[in-house]
């Protein structure tokens, strides 16, 4: 049985019919499709945040104690780093839209640099936690031995490493797609008149930032009881 070619027809404002050759210039469709993908991310992280809230209600004091042991200074610096990276990404898109391709590329490189700084700080933080014996798989985070932390703290750190790890993975993916974006710009595939890819990657980066906006208070700030604690971190 052969498949007959059936053309897709679009109708313009005057009611004239045209055969569709491609959807590459469908800006709104491209934006809507990417938002659909981002909603799956929202649901994934949203579920994690809800679980975290539920565990917090069950093990209130353990969560506060565990949170107090995190380094809020490093977490805070990373918050500011991500804030500026969202700015550079947004300004890059603005420059692209206004025709300044060179400026746009410069802003994307600045965003990549800030993303690497974020990962570097995260690595320092995780290393310090590992050296303190707090890491996935270590005895302190496994129930039923003499080094075990209280049950609520085990849950807290389990969620902490899972969520910050998943967030870090999104940062790495973000660096990858920004490098790909630069390649597409250099190839002339993304231009001031056709920048939907740039727009969507900027949206992705803002989502990564948005997730951190909640990761930071959930993990780092719930145990901050006084100014001294906030300033000193550990």
């Amino acid at each position, binding site marked *: 049985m052969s498949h007959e070619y059936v053309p897709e027809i679009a109708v313009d404002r005057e009611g004239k019919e045209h055969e569709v050759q491609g959807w590459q*210039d469908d*800006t709104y469709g491209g*934006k*809507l499709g990417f*938002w*659909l993908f981002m*909603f*799956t991310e*929202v*649901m994934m992280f*949203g*579920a994690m945040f*809800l*679980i975290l809230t*539920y565990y*917090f209600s*069950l*093990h209130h004091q353990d969560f506060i104690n565990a949170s107090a042991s995190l380094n*809020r200074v490093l977490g*805070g610096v990373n*918050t*500011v780093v991500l*804030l*500026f990276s*969202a*700015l550079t990404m*947004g*300004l890059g898109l*603005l420059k692209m*839209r*206004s025709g300044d391709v060179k400026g746009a590329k410069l802003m994307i490189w600045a965003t990549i640099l800030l993303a690497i700084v974020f990962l570097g700080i995260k690595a320092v933080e995780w290393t310090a936690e590992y050296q303190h014996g707090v890491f996935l798989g270590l005895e302190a985070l496994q*129930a039923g031995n003499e080094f075990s932390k209280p*049950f*609520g703290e085990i849950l807290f750190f389990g969620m902490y490493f899972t969520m910050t790890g998943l967030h870090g993975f999104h940062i790495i993916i973000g660096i990858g797609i920004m490098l790909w974006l630069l390649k597409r710009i250099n190839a002339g595939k993304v231009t*001031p*008149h*056709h*920048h*939907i890819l740039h*727009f969507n990657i900027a*949206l992705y980066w*803002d*989502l990564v*930032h*948005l997730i951190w*906006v*909640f990761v*930071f*208070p*959930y993990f780092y*700030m*719930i145990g*901050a*009881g*006084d*100014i*001294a*604690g*906030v300033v000193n971190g550990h």
Partner: protein
Amino acid sequence: MDTNTNVNYKSEYAGYWKVLVGLLVLTAVTFVQPGMFLTDYTFAAQLIIGAIKAWMILMYYMHLKGEKLIGAMGVFSLFLVAVFFIIVIIDVNNFQFGDVSHITSPAK
């Protein structure tokens, strides 16, 4: 057809910086809040500050202002998460194997 729209560069550029200043101020508030105000309600206060920051990012950095369809989809996706979460809470609260669970506290 192209994806370009009229760009008011100066106005949008200034907008990005204004939002950044707002977010930085709110980040500073996040830091000082536990020692300054609503000290007995740190978790709630932190989430409210986070929600304000999220709203600013969504509206201005993610260009959601005026996007009713996408906004409605966002609310629906959060609703779906809430439905699943309520089912999980009911399930966990009626868990039969609490003694051997890694979810509920053994002491509970």
